[in-house]
């Protein structure tokens, strides 16, 4: 974790806030005067992880920049539920252009700010996983390699939820979507496909790459803050459960996100200049089954005709992550802060 654990007040490192914490240890979200970058009245589903993740990230960015954030938004759920005419939920300067061009639009915004000498104003570009790993991938890669001064945030809900839950290159294997139905010998999404965008981003040698979930606010906010301390291209990948697309209960959005991390299926880490510098250790190692069973998109793995073979396969994926990133406490710690001396 970027942030040292708060030692110790009951819920110091885990809950949103606490009456006894010092100001420095408080999350942005615990502040009654937080920005609420995205405000009430938006039309997201009950329990929407993306609405939550967007507020977490942008409010943190607003604090980190002293309220100087401009956001570019790709087409997708977040855009549609936040800005249907005649109402917008945003409290920050916000621009929506197209589905696949949010990184490039942000490049333009950053260029305009640079030419105007406004280096105090920072640019965030945001998209769902479709706008990031699929249709926006080209412009994102271009933004990365040019090292434009943009923090790109992917709110990953693992599919095209806006259009009715279709498969994206971020959809996990075996998951049911409307285009990976649970029929045939290998029901759900195919194994061996998909893009691991955080690692692809790292391969661009950008200053900062991190993953986070809506289940660990302290970690998420610390990563946004850390990201805003760099210039150049940065990437933050936030897992945001989608009750609709995942078939999870609306009140379990955070719980499901937590299990994604605690199973190892979604490794939470950060990297600087292409090198992993820290990982969030698993606190209560959980078998993937516990995570999968909370979601109807995996219901075909259980029930009358269970598919323990597929569950095992998914468990192996989690195990591979655990090994690759050293997600368990008792493993030999990888060198921390093993960052190159390259400066932007």
């Amino acid at each position, binding site marked *: 974790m970027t942030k040292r654990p708060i030692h110790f007040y009951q819920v110091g490192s885990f809950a949103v806030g606490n009456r006894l914490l010092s100001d420095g240890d408080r999350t942005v979200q615990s502040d009654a005067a937080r920005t609420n970058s995205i405000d009430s009245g938006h*039309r*997201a*589903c*009950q329990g*929407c992880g993306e609405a939550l993740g967007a507020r977490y990230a942008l409010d943190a960015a607003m604090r980190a920049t002293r309220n100087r954030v401009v956001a570019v938004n790709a087409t997708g*759920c977040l855009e*549609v*539920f936040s800005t*249907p005419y005649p109402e917008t939920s945003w409290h920050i300067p916000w621009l929506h252009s197209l589905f696949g061009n949010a990184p490039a639009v942000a490049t333009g915004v950053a260029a305009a700010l640079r030419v105007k000498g406004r280096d105090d104003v920072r640019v965030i570009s945001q998209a769902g996983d479709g706008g990031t790993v699929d249709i926006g991938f080209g412009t994102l890669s271009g933004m990365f390699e040019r090292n434009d001064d943009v923090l790109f945030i992917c709110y990953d809900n693992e599919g095209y939820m806006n259009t009715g839950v279709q498969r994206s290159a971020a959809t996990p294997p075996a998951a049911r979507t409307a285009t990976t139905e649970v029929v045939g010998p290998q029901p759900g999404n195919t194994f061996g496909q998909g893009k691991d965008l955080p690692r692809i981003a790292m391969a661009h040698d950008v200053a900062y790459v991190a993953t986070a979930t809506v289940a660990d606010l302290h970690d998420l906010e610390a990563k946004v803050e850390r990201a805003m301390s760099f210039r150049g291209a940065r990437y933050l990948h936030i897992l945001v459960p989608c*009750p*609709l697309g995942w078939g999870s209960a*609306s009140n379990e959005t955070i719980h499901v996100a937590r299990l994604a991390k605690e199973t190892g299926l979604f490794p939470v880490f950060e990297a600087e200049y292409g090198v992993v510098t820290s990982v969030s250790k698993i606190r209560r190692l959980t078998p993937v089954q516990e995570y999968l069973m909370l979601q109807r998109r995996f219901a075909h793995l259980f029930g009358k005709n269970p598919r323990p073979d597929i569950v095992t396969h998914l468990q192996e994926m989690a195990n591979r992550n655990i090994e690759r990133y050293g997600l368990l406490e008792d493993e030999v710690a990888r060198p921390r802060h093993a960052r190159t001396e390259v400066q932007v």
Partner: protein
Amino acid sequence: MFQVRFHGRGGQGVVTAAEILSVAAFDEGRHAQAFPSFGSERTGAPVVSYCRIDDREIRTREPVMAPDAVIVQDVTLINQVDLFSGLSPVGFILINTSRSFEELGLADLYSRFAPARLATCPATDIALEHVGRPLPNAALLGAFAALSAQVSLKSVEKAIRDHFAGPVGERNARAASAAFDVITRFTQEVARAGTN
């Protein structure tokens, strides 16, 4: 032409209900048209869908402005949406609830319609009993068949079985049948009360 407007919440099968009703009418050799009204709202938001039934080809594509029946799948919408807007004075109202119109605070509305045209039906309870999930749309279609006589229960059951494969279809059909009986008893009572 008979026009039905369904009110419910995103995720409750409002669109499916209109579709199944149209299939039931189609199976009886009638012309039918079902269509949703799409907004940017998501799961949980109030949504509507429509169904038209006629003996002639239905060519119009305009939204249903003056329905002949309003079916309310979610009673919590009562104070939130103008549910009965445009409803014909001789129209039908069917509400999914175990309570009466008076208990819902709809006594005024009730007094403006003939008693046999307004019914409440505990469709969610019926669905829980027969289907095991709180999805009231199939039961409401059975109730609607009994209330309006626009389609037969048989057609509704068949359309439900066509839509939901296997035992799920069977269970939903049973829910429709149970709700049909509830409303049939209700209309008979009303008729008896009317003759007394």
